[in-house]
């Protein structure tokens, strides 16, 4: 079976394909940190690397796990790894790279080069990472908007659109006359049917506009409705589910607003996107705007799948078909719009887009160059670390604790920061999960961590 089986379950074949074809540029001396980052990337399946080798610095004291890093890491990839070693940044084609990682680099020239306007324009995401003793940091700099569709939120909120049903959904819902059904048949109903009829009841019998209700008010009316309908079903699983998910019956204006702001951002930032994935998502979002304008109800496409629910299998399959049908319709229309505008976007990407409309996230490019972002910080620990990395330690006024912590070496700190850098690199390349924004500081002696936005 597959060597990558366990991670495919996190980011799928799509994510794995992106990893396999990516090229990562590592800049820095052979260090524990570099070895740890590199090792993990190779394990995950990456094989194309450029290594800009910097002269070693003394802080690591040869405490290496791998004697010959390139040879030893090659053994961790089924096809071996391809490493282009370089002495300088001169002839690197930045646009062909997926991510650049400065690992324990202390040559300020590299940082300055990457901070130059003309280079910055073509740069992929750049990590600057540094470990000294028991402390370390990691900074992510983006030179263009970065989009994630598959952000994998912890809680997936189902989307039922009961407040704005489309004709097929109305037809399906109206095919049930709940009042005339016996307890057995009621127990088989999927909960959205119960919610739909509760909305009608509240609207027509009670004369209340459900959209004006809070979710707890709605739940109150729903309970009342269920008791009126059939007291014998109150404890049935599908009725319990209806109460649990009662908030899904109400409109969710924040979602709509959030989507509008993402579309706005995509429009104004389109010209900044050079990465294929970012461009495609931006195009999809702009096409979605056209799609939304042409349908009067302002319906954005629904995901293809509805979650599992208590109901008879037969009823579940029917309601699933109704939602799938709606998803297909939107997919087809979006595809047409894309073709009309001569955009060549793979169907698979469009499907991912429709399934994740609510989950789309973006990160804006960094305001300043890497150098300026880092060196403008007011964080004491980060300033000390930068001074150690690029300056001379003489300028640091340290208390005894700091002096100890910094003057010492600790392999697990490199393991930890290396793991974090590799994790963020994988997120960026697969365009899945939300990447760090944008600086992480870690003090292992106190087990303290801080996130900064530089």
């Amino acid at each position, binding site marked *: 079976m597959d060597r990558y089986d366990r991670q495919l379950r*996190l980011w799928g074949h799509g994510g794995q394909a992106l990893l396999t074809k990516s090229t990562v540029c590592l800049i820095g001396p052979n260090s524990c940190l570099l070895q740890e980052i590199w090792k993990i990337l190779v394990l995950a399946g990456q094989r194309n690397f450029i290594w800009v080798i910097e002269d070693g610095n003394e802080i690591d004291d040869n405490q290496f796990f791998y004697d010959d890093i390139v040879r030893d890491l090659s053994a961790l990839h089924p096809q071996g790894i391809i490493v282009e070693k370089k002495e300088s940044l001169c002839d690197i084609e930045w646009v062909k790279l997926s991510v650049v990682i400065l690992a324990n680099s202390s040559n300020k020239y590299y940082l300055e080069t990457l901070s130059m306007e003309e280079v910055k324009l073509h740069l992929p995401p750049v990590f600057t990472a540094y470990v000294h003793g028991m402390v370390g940091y990691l900074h992510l700099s983006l030179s263009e908007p970065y989009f994630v569709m598959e952000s994998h939120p912890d809680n997936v909120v189902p989307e039922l659109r009961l407040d704005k049903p489309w004709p097929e959904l109305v037809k399906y819902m109206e095919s049930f006359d709940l009042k005339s059904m016996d307890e057995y048949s009621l127990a*088989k109903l999927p909960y959205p049917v119960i919610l739909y009829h509760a909305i009608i009841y509240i609207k027509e019998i009670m004369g209340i506009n459900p959209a004006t209700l809070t979710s707890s008010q709605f739940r109150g009316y729903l309970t009342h409705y269920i008791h009126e309908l059939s007291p014998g079903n109150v404890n049935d699983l599908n009725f319990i589910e209806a109460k649990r998910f009662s908030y899904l019956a109400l409109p969710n204006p924040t979602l709509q607003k959030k989507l509008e702001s993402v579309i706005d951002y995509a429009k104004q930032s389109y010209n900044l996107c050079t990465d294929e994935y970012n461009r495609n998502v931006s195009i999809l979002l702009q096409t979605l705007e056209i799609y939304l304008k042409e349908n009067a109800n302002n319906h954005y496409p629904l995901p293809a799948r509805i979650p599992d629910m208590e109901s008879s299998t037969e009823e579940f*399959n029917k309601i699933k078909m109704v939602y799938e049908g709606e998803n297909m319709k939107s997919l087809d229309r979006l595809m047409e719009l894309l073709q009309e505008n001569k955009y060549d976007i793979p169907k698979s990407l469009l499907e991912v887009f429709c399934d994740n409309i609510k989950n789309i996230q973006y990160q804006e490019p960094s305001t300043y160059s890497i150098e300026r972002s880092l060196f403008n910080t007011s964080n004491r620990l980060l300033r000390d670390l930068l001074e150690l990395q690029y300056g001379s330690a003489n300028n640091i006024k340290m208390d005894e604790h700091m002096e100890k912590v910094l003057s010492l*070496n600790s392999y697990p700190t490199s393991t930890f920061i290396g793991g974090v850098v590799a994790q963020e690199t994988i997120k960026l390349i697969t365009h899945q999960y939300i990447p760090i924004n944008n600086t992480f500081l870690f003090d292992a002696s106190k087990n303290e961590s801080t996130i900064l936005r530089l």
Partner: protein
Amino acid sequence: MPRETNIVKIVGQESYDKLRSTKCLLVGAGGIGSELLKDLILMEFGEIHIVDLDTIDLSNLNRQFLFRQRDIKQPKSTTAVKAVQHFSNSKLVPYQGNIMDTNEFPLHWFHQFDIIFNALDNLSARRYVNKMSQFLQTPLLESGTSGFDGYIQPIIPGKTECFDCTKKETPKTFPVCTIRSTPSQPIHCIVWAKNFLFNQIFSAESTSNEEEEDGTKEWGTDDVEEIKRIKQETNELHELQKIITFGDKSRIPEIVEKLFIHDIEKLLLIENLWKTRTKPTPLTKTQLDASMNESKKDLHLNNNSVWNINEQLSMFLSITGKLMERMKKEHTIEFDKDDQDTLEFVATAANIRSHIFDIPLQSVFDIKQIAGNIIPAIATTNAIIAGLSALVSLRVLNLLKYAPVKTPLDLNMAMTAKASNLSQDRYISNPTLARPNCECAVCTKVTRGVVIVSDPTITLKEFIAELRSKYGFSEDISLLDLSEQRLLVDYDFDDMVDRSLDDVNLKNGSLLFFCDEEENDAGMCRKPLELYLELRNEISGQNIPKIILPELDITWIKPSSAEPEENEAERETSKEKVGGNDGAVIILDDDEAQPSTGTKRSISELDNGFESDNKKAKVAGQFDDNAIIELD
């Protein structure tokens, strides 16, 4: 050497000497284990003993970086040690074995270690090592990962929360009838195919029918007809097993006919079942004939797509033939998620059943995840968690002189959840440790000690008398064997009191639970004892007492009620989701199973055994050792 001077700088000479004389136990050489082994070596720990039962599999190689393709099927522990030996400055001792094996790893073996690192992948071993650490007061560093999520938790016995102080997510359970008669979700069909069908026809030890016969089994239904049908079906499956062992491939279609046509037709006859449910549709003979022709051709099907019903059938026929062929040599085949043949058999059988019951079909890839309880795993999380675990060990052992730990409660646990998704402003969360939970059955509600027995021929009666006189327990006591999950003696069960410890199969490493059922006037009872039995057969002589009992403080506690656990469960749901969950599935049919020694009743929920009237499972399946763990 340069490394040495570095470490000396970190911790100081005194601490460095301490580090060099420290003996660590690392339980697990998998994802976290390989990372930890490397980190502990580079930290210069004096001695590292590493235990792992497993052998290396291809799917380990995306993260267990000490192993190569050529190491597949080799033991993890010894291979890991070989891979790091060349640069190790520490003494490394590998063991390929089960950490819960009391013969290989008795309690006194654990005693040699200064610190224990858990790098395990299953709940029962985690709980076991936790108990050992509680017995010996040895600090334990617990850790776990699941995908991008991970945690570490230092456990300082008596001072901080133990592993069992918080409730862990328990396996899913299904009633028998759902699996056997009325599936409604893909997982029901997968459990049927794997735990029932596959086991019955390929595994030598097919489960006995005794409990089905004697009426003690929990069916999850009262329908007499349905129970009768399920029993009959089990018997008929033995016929199928015979076809398989006989090895005549021309009879394979009979298997399909039986499982997917006749059995379904018989189910349809039980009308009660289908009053509120959609009726299943048996396959047709025509479908079967068509697929038989297909199955003769080469099938090239993609594991990631969902095959149609004809493809499922063709594949089922051809894979059954293949397994039949294997049976000739292997005689018995166990389900293994990484054995493609067994996986495809289970996947196609489950999908055909799903088709019959109008349940969505799934890809082999997805079924593998469910049937194999696969937890996603990547190198990044393992490196992060191992790094944190190694770092915090320095604080647990108090080796960082410039950052001294005044009380164990100053130590942190740490959790990451999809790393930066955790919240807007954190990457890891690291709350300080909590005190032991006063409701915890493992670390708080028992008094622990080691009993040394040099003469195992003493009777239970004598043994109990010694215990009672030493600790002042009343006459109303009960004695349980926690290792074997059985009741030995209690108020209304004294059949075994005249048997010797040997007779009742108590051995070195048995865990005994001795509890006083009597309450005093204030409604308090004596804290129960958990005793580790150490047999010293080699000692003989006139003056050696038959039993040496430990000196223990007997305190009084309030008899527990079940309610606080509920609250605790709620409190913990958000906190402790990762790692502890093995995702195992339990079929709820065994909470009355008879222990092999033939005691009159079984004990469930042994960890709460002091609730005297509660020896039957209230919440069956809460303790993994109790019900049958169906998916592991």
